[in-house]
């Protein structure tokens, strides 16, 4: 019996080639989308789960807000050891130290000298808590000694040209202060998977830090670039530890602390965490949901094609059904037959889908910035999931036709007498087409909105000139000769200005405590250390007071600038009210008293999802600064960069010139949104494609069914245009209905998405009209292939068989 069904399925496929193609192609593309998204979702969900003890690892986070919602992923250096000592529930604590804001550091071995970004100091027990896979060396002792370092496979190849550099040394300048030290290689790790939120190529022993005593002592409880992970003992409740954190903090820093501490599960970091100073931009659970929904919808659109074409084709099929009933088929057997047929089709589509997936996986990886691959061998859960998907698709797509067709009464189907079911089927068919196009229009609207929001972000005035600014890491050789270097470099007329700062926009978020005259409580605010040229170089405007002035000697120590957001926070009536107030910064266990001399216009230093934070700018000595920013003239950029590079090497021979455009860094802040945009774009395109494929089939079917009518009309004098109009009218109506449904849904969804942005576009009506228009145009074009063909046909041909 089964064999019979398969044979029949195959013959059917061959007999109705167009329909088969539409069905299989649609299902294959739908499945491809679905599987790709499934792969993406699974990848997002496996972040950090490869650590054996993942369920027991928590990240210490910090909140500077009164509502105690965690705000910062970075903590301080004394907290970890104190936690380990105070809490019996804690099995181990590991700290990672990111140097500065993750600026690159120079590593050297013989002539191999490179800037490297992925570098941390880590506590010696890091490999007891985390399960980063070792290739060589002993995880227990690798980071026990000062000046030991563990590197990845890739670095081993890069610096040593082989995979066993144990015992060899690599030289680095971790503080970027010109002081190189030799680190002994004590371990080689497998390259880290992309699904680790902590990514590094070098991990140096914590004891190697020359300022460890200060960092754990005087600066032990400030906001530093320490990332603290806590391994709890088995069966310990996080809540109980969490509950004791306020008391813990009070014990160590006293009542006057400006932040609170929190524990965040390691496995939630990737999809549920959006803090300042995250080690990398995280994913977003909302996007996982959105993408999953899109996957389901695309597959559904393909299934609908199948249903629609099957019911449209039912004229042919019901005859067969009738005959089968006459020779003894009961309904269940017919349902089975049709289901087997659709499952066969979807299995076939699955095979094609895998060809498509192999072809498009690099594209997906490119869009989402991952290295997802499919392990086929011995991956039974995967195989089972895929077969399950095909089965489900087959059943969803096939069930309606199966029940619809098998229900027809044999005599009606044989004699061709119409029954009520057909009308219902036609109504349902229309409903399903409306649904398909509604989804497509929603996706098009989303694509448009995301696109324009991204454009807006790219071009919005940040409060400074971002597209002409390049940033390079500052090093000690430059620091020592900064004045001379500045004078020499600015000789080039295409180098308009330069400034040294501790952080740079898009990489800022470090804070400090501030006591301000007129405000009761000490404030934890974002700090910005710079030299006197910062505002000039970035082109930031002044709202009140004045900029730093090199001629005023007190500016180097006691002058502070605040931004407009600060004034709003302080609830002062005007920026002018801020001028002259006393302000004291406590940073690194030291107090820096001074006066507010100016208020700067607000400028964005972080993503557009955030409003501009209150910010305090002051001048700090060169050794506190990490970056150098240049403003370039818009012309001759290549030449200017070449000039900079060669001039740089005169002042800093040990440090290669390494720079990036500030603009690119800002773009990176919105990477996830950019991805969303591209995913929408791709899937909107596919959704419309699949929906149109179905429409093409339906149009063919309608044209065929109405051949005789068209013939008669033409004999009576209808023109080609009349006929095309007549045939297209129904489809146009469907697409218009689809728009009516899609607009409010899309408006609601996109409005919610935009709410996350502090700075956002307004969705204009034209977005909807445009998207609907595009969908309509595409639909009409699709249908026109069939209608024009039908309209051009010789009427005599179609009437001859009367």
């Amino acid at each position, binding site marked *: 019996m089964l064999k019979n069904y398969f044979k029949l399925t195959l013959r059917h496929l061959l007999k109705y080639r167009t329909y088969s193609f539409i069905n299989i192609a649609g299902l294959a593309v739908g499945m491809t989308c679905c599987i790709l998204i499934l792969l993406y979702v699974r990848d997002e969900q496996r972040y950090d789960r490869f650590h054996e003890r993942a369920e027991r690892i928590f990240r210490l986070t910090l909140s500077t807000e009164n509502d105690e919602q965690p705000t910062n992923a970075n903590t301080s250096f004394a907290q970890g050891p104190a936690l380990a000592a105070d809490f019996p529930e804690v099995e181990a604590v590991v700290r990672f130290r990111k140097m500065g804001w993750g600026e690159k550091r120079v590593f050297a071995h013989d002539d191999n000298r490179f800037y490297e970004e992925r570098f941390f100091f880590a506590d010696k027990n890091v490999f007891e808590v985390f399960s980063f896979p070792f290739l060589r060396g002993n995880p227990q002792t690798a980071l026990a000694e000062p000046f030991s370092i563990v590197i990845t496979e890739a670095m081993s190849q890069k610096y040593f040209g082989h995979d066993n550099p144990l015992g060899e040394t690599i030289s680095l300048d971790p503080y970027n202060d010109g002081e190189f030290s030799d680190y002994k290689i004590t371990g080689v790790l497998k390259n880290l998977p992309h699904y680790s939120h902590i990514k590094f190529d070098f991990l140096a022993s914590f004891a190697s830090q020359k300022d460890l005593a200060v960092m754990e002592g005087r600066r032990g409880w400030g906001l530093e670039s320490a990332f603290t992970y806590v391994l709890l003992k088995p069966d310990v409740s996080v809540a109980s530890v969490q509950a004791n954190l306020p008391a813990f903090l009070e014990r160590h820093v006293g009542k006057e602390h400006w932040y609170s501490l929190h524990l965040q599960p390691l496995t939630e970091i990737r999809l549920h965490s959006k803090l300042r100073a995250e080690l990398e931009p995280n994913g977003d659970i909302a996007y996982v949901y959105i993408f999953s929904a899109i996957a389901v919808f695309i597959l559904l659109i393909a299934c609908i094609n199948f249903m629609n074409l099957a019911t449209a084709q039912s004229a042919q099929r019901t005859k067969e059904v009738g*005959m089968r009933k006459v020779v003894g088929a009961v309904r269940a057997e017919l349902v089975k037959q049709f289901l087997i047929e659709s499952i066969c089709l979807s299995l076939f589509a699955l095979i094609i889908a895998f060809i498509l997936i192999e072809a498009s996986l690099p594209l997906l990886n490119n869009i989402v910035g991952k290295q997802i691959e499919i392990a086929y061998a011995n991956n039974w859960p995967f195989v089972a999931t895929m077969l399950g998907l095909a089965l489900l698709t087959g059943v969803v797509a096939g069930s309606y036709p199966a029940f619809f067709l098998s229900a027809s009464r044999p005599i009606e189907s044989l004699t061709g007498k119409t029954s009520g079911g057909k009308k219902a089927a036609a109504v349902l068919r229309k409903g399903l087409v409306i649904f398909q196009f509604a989804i497509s229009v929603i996706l098009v609207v989303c694509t448009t909105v995301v696109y324009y929001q991204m454009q807006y972000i790219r071009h919005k005035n940040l409060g400074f000139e971002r597209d002409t600014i390049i940033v390079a890491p500052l090093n000690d050789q430059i620091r020592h000769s900064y004045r001379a270097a500045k004078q020499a470099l600015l000789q080039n007329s295409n180098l308009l200005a330069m400034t040294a700062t501790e952080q740079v926009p898009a990489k800022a978020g470090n804070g400090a405590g501030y006591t301000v005259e007129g405000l009761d409580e000490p404030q934890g605010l974002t700090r910005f250390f710079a030299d006197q040229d910062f505002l000039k170089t970035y082109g930031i405007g002044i709202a009140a007071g004045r900029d730093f002035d090199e001629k005023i000697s007190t500016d180097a120590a006691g002058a502070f600038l605040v931004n407009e957001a600060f004034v709003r926070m302080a609830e002062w009536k005007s920026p002018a009210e801020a001028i002259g107030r006393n302000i004291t910064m406590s940073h690194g266990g030291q107090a820096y008293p001074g006066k507010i001399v100016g208020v700067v216009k607000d400028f964005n230093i972080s993503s557009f999802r955030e409003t501009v934070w209150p910010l305090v700018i002051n001048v700090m000595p060169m050794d506190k600064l990490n970056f150098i920013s240049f403003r370039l003239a818009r012309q001759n950029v290549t030449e200017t960069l070449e000039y900079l590079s060669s001039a740089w090497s005169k002042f800093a021979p040990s440090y290669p010139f390494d720079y990036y455009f500030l603009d690119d860094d800002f773009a990176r802040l919105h990477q996830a949104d950019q991805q969303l945009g591209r995913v929408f774009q791709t899937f909107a395109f596919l959704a419309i494609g699949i929906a149109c494929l179905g429409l093409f089939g339906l149009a063919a079917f309608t044209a065929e069914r109405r051949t005789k009518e068209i013939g008669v009309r033409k004999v009576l004098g209808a023109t080609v245009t009349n006929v095309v109009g007549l045939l297209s009218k129904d489809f146009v109506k469907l697409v218009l209905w689809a728009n009516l449904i899609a607009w409010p849904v899309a408006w609601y969804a996109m409005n919610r998405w935009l709410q996350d942005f502090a700075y956002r576009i307004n969705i204009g009506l034209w977005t909807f009209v445009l998207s609907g228009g595009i969908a309509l145009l595409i639909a009409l074009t699709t249908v026109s292939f069939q209608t024009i063909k039908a309209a051009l046909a010789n009427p005599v041909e179609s009437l001859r068989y009367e």
Partner: protein
Amino acid sequence: MIQLKSLFKYYSNKFVKTYVLQDINLQIQQGEFVTIMGPSGSGKSTLLHIIGMLDEPNDGEYHFFDQPVHKLNEKQRSELHKNYIGFVFQSYHLIDELTVYENLETPLLYQKVKTTERKSMIADILDRFQIVAKKDLFPNQLSGGHQQLVGIARAVIVNPKLILADEPTGNLNSAQGEEIMNLFKKLHQEGTTIIQVTHSEKNATYGSRIVHLLDGRVDRDVQVS
């Protein structure tokens, strides 16, 4: 074998009921060869479909052997139908996508006949109808006469107690028609009950009894010798 008591069949079109069959009372014994005749539209096919359980009457009783068909549900009716009845149509109604062999196989599949047995039954019937050479052809590659042969073979293959034939020779030339009628005669001699609808007086002579329908009623019911 078949007992119809005051059977009615009508189609309602908006507010008007059109009666196709009115108060049909008919008894047919096992082993009879009955011909139903009557003008076009008199309800012959409808009656045949009802007897074949492909259609339901609106009113009246239908007993098949001792089963009250009018009280059975769809599933029970399909069971009865598939075990006892073979149907032959004027327009053959073979499944286009299946070869002759597969068309013959289909009813056996639905009866869940085992593979080996099935093969021998098909081989047997192909032989009996002398269409062995055509077994791998598709219906549209056959002449009308051959298609009808296959149609009858498909009805006969399950050894039905009752064969219903609706103008089986209507689309055939006279030589082909005669061949088919001889086949029915042989089947009848072997003990199968046959009910045929025909317009041809000559074909009617093959049977033992003629039921004349007129406007949905039994007009005359005569035995032929």
